[in-house]
Structures are given as structure tokens and as C-alpha cells.
């Protein structure tokens, strides 16, 4: 089974997703995400679930943040309520949610998405063996490492395309800077970016109600790796859309759909790379291993 998963930020794009053959959409739940995605209310999630199910498309909800002692119990209840909306999956980062899900026998809906903490076969398999739906392989690994984990662990998710999360702070760093320096800008704007003093790369920076996040200066793409990942039995192929234009999202979906259907997409891939050459498309860490 090969499932094309795409985050959804604008409900108006849903029809395009359906027409283009997206299998699953990922929605961010309000105040529950370490992500720059648009956040949906429970009522909106319910409506989107109904629409998706009518078209045989599944829905996963992101609750991929860490919760304080004060917040975890409400989050556990909210997770249960969201699952009762009919969603098909839920992505989490806080094992406190998994503990509750296991008590309620809901763990088979859950996907572990810790971003950075699961970088070897045994760790990935451990989490999957908790009865989870899937585990997300981090975007920090070489192509071979991704394939090793995918072969070793069933039903893995790989984020194949998009600007990927680099850091998360509980501190409201943009708000703090704004306050100290008496600046006037919107900390929740998705047009903010950071450029290290010695470098030329612009890294999107974003603050929501629960965290401040920094994303990669490049858009990860996996066009050339798709066949290998499919051979390695990756199940969920996810396109993350923060900081991408809607046009770029649609163009990417079209190509990955072709690749998953084992069609020749070489012309479309070249056209995409030409069209978005100013967006710093990159294969990330696939070809370069970090050092200790």
C-alpha cells in the first residue's frame, strides 16, 4: 500500500487534492501543533472528514506538540474527541498521549512524529510495536538510512517534500525580540525569515500559540528517491505544505502521484525544478551524512 499524504491549509484546495489523487490529508488541530500549518477547529475538522470520506480519502490530525503537566489531561481528552470525529489517524510527539490512547485502545490510530528522536531501526521498530499506525522517519537521515528503517519497520511515513522543521522553542522568541527592541511586526506572519549573519540562506520563522519554530531554508524534494523508498516499503509519502505556494503544492502532488503510479515523470520533474529554481529545492540530507 502506498499512500500519498498531503497537509491541507486551505479547504478550497480539497477538490484539487481529490481530483489529483491524494489519498490522505493532514490537518493541524488548533493549539496542538509544532507546525506552521493553518490550524483547524474541531467543527472544521469534522466537516473536512465528512467531505474526504465521501471521496474515499482519509484524514489524519496533527497533535504533534509537547504538553505541560497542566495541559496533558485536556489534550488526552481532546485527542479522544478528535478521533471520535471520524478521523483515520492522529500524529503525536508526546508519549503522554500514547499512554492514554493505549488505555482506551486507540493506539492503532496514532503515528509517532518526534521530528528528530528516532534515527535507527530499533528505535523506530520499538515505537511501531506499541501498536501504532505508523512512525515518521526524520528528515535528518541519508537515503540509505531512510531505506534501512523503512525495510525494518512496517508502515513507515517519509516526509518527501516541503520545508521541514528545524527547531522548536517553547519560548516566544519572536515576541521577545519584538518587545525588547520595540519593533512593529506580526509574529504570526508566515512571511518572516531568519538569515544567519555569515550565510545567505533564509529560514522561515514562525510563532503560534504554543511555540516558535524555524524551518529549513530549502524545500526538501524526493523525486529521485521515490522508487527506492517505494521498494523499501514506505507506506505513507507525505508532502508538507508550509511556506509553499498553492501552485507549487499542486504541481508537486501531480508529480508524486505519477511516481507512485510508476509512471514516467521525468519531464514534469525537470519542469518543476525549472519553475521553482528560486525556491532552493534540495535533497536535504539524503546524500550527506551529519558528523558527530
Amino acid at each position, binding site marked *: 500500500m502506498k499512500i500519498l499524504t498531503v497537509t491541507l491549509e486551505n479547504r478550497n484546495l480539497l477538490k484539487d487534492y481529490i481530483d489529483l489523487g491524494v489519498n490522505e490529508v493532514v490537518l493541524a488541530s488548533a493549539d496542538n501543533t509544532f507546525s506552521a500549518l493553518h490550524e483547524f477547529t474541531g467543527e472544521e475538522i469534522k466537516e473536512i472528514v465528512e467531505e474526504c470520506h465521501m471521496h474515499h480519502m482519509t484524514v489524519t490530525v496533527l497533535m504533534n506538540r*509537547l*504538553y*505541560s*503537566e*497542566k*495541559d*496533558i*489531561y485536556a489534550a*488526552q481528552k481532546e485527542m479522544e474527541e478528535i478521533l471520535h470525529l471520524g478521523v483515520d489517524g492522529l500524529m503525536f510527539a*508526546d*508519549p*503522554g498521549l500514547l*499512554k*492514554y490512547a493505549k488505555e482506551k485502545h486507540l493506539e492503532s490510530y496514532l503515528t509517532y512524529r*518526534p521530528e*528528530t*528522536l528516532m*534515527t*535507527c*531501526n*530499533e*528505535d523506530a521498530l520499538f*515505537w511501531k510495536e506499541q501498536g501504532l499506525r505508523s512512525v515518521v522517519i526524520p528528515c*535528518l*537521515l541519508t537515503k540509505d*538510512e531512510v531505506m*534501512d528503517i523503512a525495510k525494518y519497520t512496517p508502515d513507515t511515513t517519509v516526509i518527501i517534500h516541503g520545508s521541514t522543521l*528545524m*527547531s*522548536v*522553542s*517553547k*519560548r*516566544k*522568541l*519572536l*515576541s*521577545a*525580540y519584538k*518587545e*525588547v*527592541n520595540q*519593533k512593529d*511586526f*506580526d509574529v504570526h*506572519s508566515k*512571511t*518572516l*525569515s*531568519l*538569515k*544567519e*549573519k555569515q550565510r545567505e540562506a*533564509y529560514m522561515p520563522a514562525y510563532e503560534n500559540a504554543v511555540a516558535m519554530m*524555524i524551518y*529549513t531554508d530549502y524545500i526538501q524534494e524526493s523525486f529521485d528517491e521515490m522508487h527506492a523508498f517505494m521498494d523499501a516499503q514506505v507506506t505513507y509519502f507525505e508532502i508538507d505544505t508550509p511556506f509553499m505556494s498553492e501552485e507549487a503544492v499542486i504541481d508537486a502532488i501531480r508529480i508524486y502521484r505519477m511516481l507512485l503510479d510508476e509512471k514516467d515523470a521525468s519531464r514534469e520533474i525537470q519542469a518543476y525544478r525549472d519553475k521553482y529554481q528560486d525556491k532552493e529545492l534540495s535533497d536535504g*540530507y539524503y546524500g550527506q551524512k*551529519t*558528523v*558527530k
Partner: protein
Amino acid sequence: MDIMDRRQLSNRFHKPELLAPAGDLKRAKTAILYGADAVYLGGQFFSLRSRASNFTLEDIQEACVFAKEHGARIHVTCNIIPHNEDFEGLEEYLKKLEEFGVTAIIVASPSIMKLARKVAPKLEVHCSTQMSITNVETAIFMHDVFGIDRAVLARECNMEDIYGITEKCPVETEAFIHGGMCVNYSGRCTLSNRMTLRDANRGGCAQSCRWAYHLYDGKNEISDDALFTMGSKDLFTADYMYDLMNAGVSSLKIEGRMKTEYYVATIVSGYRHLIDEIYENQGPLSQERLDYHKKQILYGENREVCSGFYAGNANADSLIYHETSNADVNHDFLGTVVGIDGTHVTIETRNKFNTGETLEILSPYNTVRQFHVDSILNAKNEVIETANQPMTRVQIDIPFEVHEKDILRRSR
């Protein structure tokens, strides 16, 4: 229940473990002599802080022997987030640690926890702060699944969280009390990976969060007059020590395996006396006594400090927006006692001091004591006004008992 309601003496009020960092064997011994109940250190593999000196197996064995002789314990960090190739030699390493008498390993990876349980069952498993335990539900999960013996709490916990977690936690808890802080959730930051290709979760963190950044909105620079930075001030929790003890936190951890011997001695000694006095008092200290201890601790601190998340959300005043260093701290460490003949004391010098100054002796065996420098003799027994050559020996008179390795410092 808020914190004030909880500030009546709890039935969990006890003297917690003071856990100190050590970058090498010398600093491990110093930490123990100055009052640490336990020391944590990293081996040459499987540990974050790859740029700390780190311990050979022989060093770890010697540290265990020294700790045992002094009633202390050794914890070893095995807190990398491993890639597949990082397991080579791990099993043998864990067995060695157990054989040497290491008390605990600090771990962030489920597979390392499982392996340790299997091959070295006498080692306690402490779940690293890299796992970001911010609520008791996570701690219970880690206990149920791995049988962890201790949960190291995330630095993002506030006092309310800590009271709540310790109340229900089935295992010991450990909280940070002093030192450097990741501005991002520990373990969930790859700024270093991206900018230097050094893997932060395998010991290579380049601390890119402390670099300077331009901030843009679209193409317009916002930071034209003040660059954006994310560097956090260091954690300093003397004001929260009573609450941490009253909450029943089992272990209080000082950060800083790359810090100097002087730092280790000063910070450990400062917190040792603070904890002991709160325990003897069985309650909060007077402001005057608290201020005294705060001053003693801050002798060793060379960065700006803040209370982190203990007071609530760490906001603008917990961040460093300017280039700064408290260079005075480095000038305070004047030398070490290397010889004693009655009141004539030989000092191996580190920084300049003068006849006529009032100086202090920091000792593991006593409270801080001051004295006046009446004269200084150099190695040729000549009277000199100023000791200004580092790493040379001079003799001064000190009118009270001192011990070898006691620290001579400037009085502030």
C-alpha cells in the same frame, strides 16, 4: 492547587541528591570534594558533548573508586540519539560500566534503554532530558514500558508542573538547577546539523542558536538596528531551591561538563551549602541568608543568569540580546593551595593579586573565610608586591587552617 498552597512543608521534604557535571577526572574529584552527591560524566562514545574532554574507561573506573570512597555516585551519559552504526561496542561498554560500579546511565533512546536492561541490569536507567518529559503521563509511560528508574524533567517545566509531576510520578525525578540552557526543546533542534553538518543529537551541537541572525519580513529587514539572537541566559535557581526540595524532586542537576574546575568547585559548593541550610531549617531561608548563598554561587558564574521556566514562561528577560561576558569571574580565581607549613601557604597562581588585598579561601572542608594579604614571597623567597605570573608558586600567610587544593579567590 497553586504553588503558594503547596508551600506548606510536604511529607516529601528531604535532602535531594546534588548532581554535578565533570568533563574529566580532575573535575569529577573536585565536584565530589566540594559536596556533590553524584557526578555525571560522558565516556568517549555514546554521549552528547563530544567536545568535552570525556572519560576513558580507566578514568570512569577511577572515578567510581573515588566516588565510593567518598560516599558518592557516578552517572554516565549514554544520551545520543543513535543511528544504526552507533551501536558498535555499546553492549560491552554497558557491561563495563556495571562492572566498575557506575550507578546509572542517562539515556534518550528506547533501544539503548532496552539493551541496558538486558545486558547490565544493575545499572539504573535515567531517562534523559532529550526525551522532553514535561508531564507525569510521559514519565509513567516510560516507567511502564522501560522500567526507567528516574525521569530527568525537561527544562521547560515550571514549578507548578514540577509539583504536579512529583506528586504522581512513580519514579525519582531530576530537575536542572544551574547552567546552560538549550533555547529550543532539547533533542528537537537541528540548527547545528543544517549550518555545520554537526549532529546535535550525537554530540556535535555547534550552539548555532547563540549566533546572530538578520530577521526579515518578506524582503524587508526588521533587524536593521539590532540583530536577532536566541541565546538563553544560564539557569540559576537559588530562589526556587526550597520549592524544588518541597516538591520532592529527588536530584538537582548542575549543567556544564565543559566548565572549568573553578566553576565546578564554586557552583557545587554554593548549592551544597544552600541545600544543607534549607534542609536544616526545614523551610525557606530568610532573604538575608538566601542573598548570601546567591552571592556565593554567582562567584563561579561567568554568564548572565535567569530563572528559566521556573517562574512561568521564560520570556524576553531570559534571553541575551547583546554581546557580553562577565570577565571578572575569570579574574577571581587566583590560585590553588599546593603546600602548607603552619601558616605559610604555597599557592600555585592563576591570576594577579597584590599585597594588601582581602582574599578568600574556598574549601570543601569549611565555609568561605577571608583574610588580608600581608606579604607575598616568590619562589626565591624574595618579597614581592604583586603575584602576576600565572602558574608560578608564591608563599603567603593565611591565619587559619587550609588544605591542599583549596581555592584562593578574590573577595567581592
